[in-house]
C-alpha cells in the first residue's frame, strides 16, 4: 500500500483544523439559547451528524448504481465504506437527538418524523451489513448489496413523508402542549453561522473518513492477496 498521498494529508489536516474551529463556534461563538439553555448547542453537531448519515446513504445508492451499470469492485468498496460511516453518524444523530429531547420534552424518545426516519435509516444500514455478512461470493455480495442500497435509499424519504403526514393529521402531544413542537427555536445570525460551519466541517469529516476507510480496504485486499500466495506456494 502506498504511503498516505499528499491530498489525504492535506484533507485530514484541514478537517482537524475545521473541527477545532467548529467546536469553538459551537461552544463559544454561538450564544446560549434563550429558552432551552446550553443543551441547544447539541443541535449543531446533531444535525451535522444526521447530514453525514444522509450523505453517506446517497453515496451508497450512487455507488450501487455505478457498480451495477459499469462494474468495478472499487465502487463496492466505496459503498461499504460509506455504509460504515453512515451507521456511525446516524447513531450519533439518534443518540444526540434523544439527549436533546430529554430536558425539553421530558422524554427520551419523541416519535417525530426526523428521529424515526433516522432510526429506520439506521435499520436499513444494519440490514445492508447483515445481508453482506451472509454471502460468501464477493461478486454476489457486491451485486446484492448494490441493489439493497438503492432500494433502501428510495424507501427512506417515503418513510419520512408518511410519518410526517401522520403527524399533521394526528398531532401527537408529548409532554409539551404544542403538537407542532419539533425543537423549534429562533436562530440568531451567530447560531446560523455555527450551524452552517458545523455542516461544512462534518462534510469534510465524512470525506476524510471515507478516503481513509478506502485505504484500509486496499490494505485488507493486499493482505488477502498475500494469504493466497502463501497458501498456494
Amino acid at each position: 500500500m502506498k504511503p498516505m498521498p499528499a491530498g489525504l494529508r492535506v484533507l485530514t489536516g484541514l478537517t482537524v483544523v475545521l473541527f477545532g474551529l467548529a467546536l469553538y463556534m459551537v461552544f463559544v461563538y454561538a450564544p446560549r439559547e434563550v429558552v432551552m439553555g446550553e443543551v441547544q448547542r447539541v443541535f449543531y453537531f446533531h444535525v451535522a451528524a444526521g447530514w453525514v448519515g444522509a450523505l453517506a446513504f446517497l453515496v451508497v445508492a450512487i455507488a450501487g448504481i455505478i457498480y451495477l451499470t459499469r462494474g468495478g469492485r472499487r465502487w463496492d468498496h466505496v459503498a461499504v465504506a460509506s455504509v460504515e460511516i453512515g451507521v456511525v453518524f446516524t447513531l450519533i444523530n439518534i443518540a444526540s437527538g434523544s439527549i436533546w429531547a430529554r430536558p425539553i420534552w421530558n422524554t427520551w424518545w419523541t416519535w417525530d418524523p426526523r428521529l424515526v426516519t433516522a432510526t429506520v435509516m439506521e435499520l436499513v444500514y444494519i440490514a445492508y451489513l447483515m445481508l453482506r455478512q451472509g454471502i460468501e461470493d464477493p461478486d454476489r455480495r457486491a451485486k446484492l448489496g448494490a441493489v439493497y442500497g438503492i432500494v433502501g435509499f428510495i424507501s427512506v424519504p417515503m418513510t419520512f413523508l408518511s410519518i410526517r403526514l401522520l403527524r399533521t393529521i394526528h398531532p401527537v402531544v408529548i409532554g409539551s402542549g404544542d403538537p407542532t413542537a419539533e425543537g423549534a427555536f429562533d436562530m440568531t445570525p451567530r447560531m446560523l453561522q455555527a450551524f452552517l460551519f458545523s455542516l461544512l466541517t462534518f462534510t469534510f469529516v465524512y470525506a476524510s473518513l471515507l478516503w481513509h476507510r478506502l485505504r484500509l480496504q486496499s490494505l485488507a485486499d493486499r493482505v488477502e492477496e498475500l494469504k493466497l500466495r502463501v497458501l498456494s506456494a
Partner: protein
Amino acid sequence: MSEAAERTDRTTAASGQLASGWRQYLRAIAALVRKDIAAEVRSWELVGAMLVFSLLVILLFNFALELQVQLRSEITSGVLWVTLTFAGTLGLNRAMASERERNSLDGLLLTPVDRSALYFGKTLANWLFMLLVAAIVLPLFGLLYSTNLVSPGLLLVVLMGTAGYAAVGTLLATMAIQTRTRDILLPILLFPVVLPALIAAVKASDGYLQGLPPDAIRPWLNLLVAFDVIFVAVAMMLYDSVVQE
C-alpha cells in the same frame, strides 16, 4: 412497389414483430404465474401455512391487546395489516425456497425472454397468494369482531397494499434466499423498506372503516400508489442483477 406502400409494409412488419414480442412477453409471464399456481394447488402448502399463521396472529393479538368484541377501527386496521405483513413474509420465504429446492428457476432462466418477465411472473403469483389469504382473513376477522371489513374502499386498499408488498418482497426474497441466514433475513430487509406502504395502508383502511371523507383518505391512497409504481419500476430494473445464475 411504390415507396409509400413499401414503407407501410415495413411499419406493419415492425409493429407485427413488436406485437409478437409483447405477446411472447405476456405469455411468459402468464406461464410463470400458471406454474406457481399449479404447484400451489397441488399441495396448498403456501396459502395453507399463511392462513393458519394469520389466524394464530389474530388470536395472539386478541389476547395481547385484550381486544373487545366491538373493535375500535384504529386497532382493526393495525391488527389486520400487521397480520398480513407477517403472513406475507412466510409466503414469500416459502415461495422462493421451494423454487430453489426444485431448481426450476434454472429452466426459467434459459428462456429467451427479458428477465423482467421472471420478476412479474413471480410477483403476480405472490400477490395472488396474498390476496387469497386476505380474502379469507377479512371476512373471518369481521366475524370475530362484529365489524364489516368487506367494503369496496377497504378492498381497494388491500389490493394496493399487498401489491406494493409483493413488489418489493419478491425482489428482496430472491436476494435473501441466496444468503446463509435465508428466512431470517427477509423480514430484516423487508420491513424497514415496506414501512411507508404499511403506514399508508393502515391509515387508508382506517379511513374507510371510519367512513372518513375522501379528502382525508386520498393522501394515503396517493402515497400507496406512488409506492407501488416506484417500487415495481425499480424492482423490475434491478431483478436481473439479483437472480442467481
